[in-house]
């Protein structure tokens, strides 16, 4: 395969998504097209409930598109594609498994050979600063730690693309910032593609290579911003950067143009 470099990781071509409700068809996403390049960190921002999450679910093969084409690594999505990692807003850990066993779920499903398992788990625990808690159950962990385990499980699966649906949305401000740093550190080391959904504009600018701004439902792309802030980024210093402020202002502007009045 000589042309793999040119095939984007994810491609959406005029994709429309809708839900069947008791009152009839509800259009959620309207003719959206975009691509996620290899090693790109793409962030989708838009008002809550605008259909961003539905786009992620469709890419992961959990929801079928009404029309249009979705492909991952050049293959049409028809059920969950290979090498996709997903992270929900809630941690979705298995409460009856401890930290180590939860991470091992990712190894199980990636088919990692038995000889490598112990070292992979140890690596991930160290990477996510969870080594001390390897035998703790989710009920014993704080929200931030549970999210780190959740991230660990996804990384254990070795996905080529990570789909993250407001993964830190339920966390307090500080923990959220810490998780953002953690994610950037991992992404900068491994350079997988990330498609990240959020409604937090500052989070979007801080993390992204590129930000797509969505309208309220039915979602359409209203703006695209390439974030040219230098990497590696220090999230703590970023706020003082005038470019950072300019990007957030521009995205605020793009969102404001489409103020639906109901948030």
């Amino acid at each position, binding site marked *: 395969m000589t042309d793999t470099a040119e095939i984007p990781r994810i491609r959406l071509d005029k994709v429309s998504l809708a839900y069947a409700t008791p009152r009839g068809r509800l259009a959620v996403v309207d003719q959206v097209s975009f691509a996620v390049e290899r090693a790109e960190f793409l962030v989708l921002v838009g008002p809550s409930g605008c259909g961003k999450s539905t786009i992620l679910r469709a890419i992961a*093969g959990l929801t079928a598109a009404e029309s249009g084409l979705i492909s991952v690594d050049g293959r049409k999505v028809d059920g*969950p594609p290979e090498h996709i990692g997903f992270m929900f807003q809630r941690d979705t850990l298995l409460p009856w498994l401890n930290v180590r066993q939860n991470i091992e779920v990712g190894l199980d*499903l990636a088919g990692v050979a038995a000889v490598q398992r112990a070292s992979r788990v140890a690596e991930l625990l160290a990477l996510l600063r969870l080594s001390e808690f390897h035998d703790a159950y989710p*009920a014993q962990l*704080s929200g931030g730690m549970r999210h780190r385990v959740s991230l660990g499980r996804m990384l254990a*699966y070795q996905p080529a693309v990570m789909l993250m649906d407001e993964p830190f949305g339920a966390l307090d401000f500080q923990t959220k910032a810490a998780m953002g740093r953690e994610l950037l550190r991992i992404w900068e080391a491994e350079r997988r593609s990330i498609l990240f959904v959020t409604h937090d504009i500052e989070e979007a600018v801080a993390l992204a290579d590129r930000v797509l701004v969505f309208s309220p439902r039915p979602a359409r792309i209203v703006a695209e911003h390439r974030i040219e802030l230098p990497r590696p980024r220090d999230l703590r210093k970023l706020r003082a950067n005038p470019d950072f402020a300019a990007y957030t202002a521009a995205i605020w502007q793009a969102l404001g143009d489409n103020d639906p009045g109901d948030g």
Partner: protein
Amino acid sequence: MTEPVAADEMTPAGRPGDNARDISQDGTSNWLWRLGLIGGLLLVWEFAAGHLFNEFWSSRPSLIGERLLILFRSGEIWRHLDATVTEALLGLLLGALVGTPIGMALARYRRAADILDPLVMGLYGLPRVALAPMFILWFGISLFAKIMMSFSMVVFVFILNVTEGIRAIDSDMVDLMRTMRAPKSYILRKVTIPSIVPWLLASFRIGIGLSLVGAVVGELIGANRGLGWYVLRAGGQLDTTGVFTGLLVLMLVAMIANQIISRIERKILHWRVTAR
């Protein structure tokens, strides 16, 4: 996910040590209260009988204790205990064995569940005690008749609890497994089965009492031994002490069985408890 039992055990992350000490202290003082309460009631009973009303109607704790001693000394009690416990236990296990897969199937096949729902609820609502004469007719006064009686009492508890347990599974959890292309058997093993374990344990807890009811009812209709039969015979002879003794032993059986389930619960569901 909703929790069928002991949701109060779920606490946010905290310092494990403190929690464990609090629980054990509470446990001890609860036992003291319990013993005090029971002792007090027994004392009131002992002195009221014979003073406030004729002890013929109520017997009294000392007489019951004496009877219990006689039954244990002669070994007669074992004949009855053995019969009733065997009937109830086999009925309970059969109920679990049959009810669990039916419950899983009803959760899996929504349409079938909707169609069958009135039937299941109708059978569940039916006072199955009224079936006892039929069971005796069909199965005779055999052990099997009582097992079936006990089974008919508990099977619905398993069916309904397991169905509800599976429906309560967090769909995000399953979706997450699907995004990692987990085979169905893997999801069953890692998500579905562990999710219904608390519901199964709750079913056993409820089922203990019901299976004893089934066994005793079976014995009341036709038997020549068992605690239910003992109570019935004592009643027929106007032997109130015998009746209360039989009831006491039945109660003790239920309490011990309940303790066993609690132990198992604590062992299997240790992941719910914050304290390590």
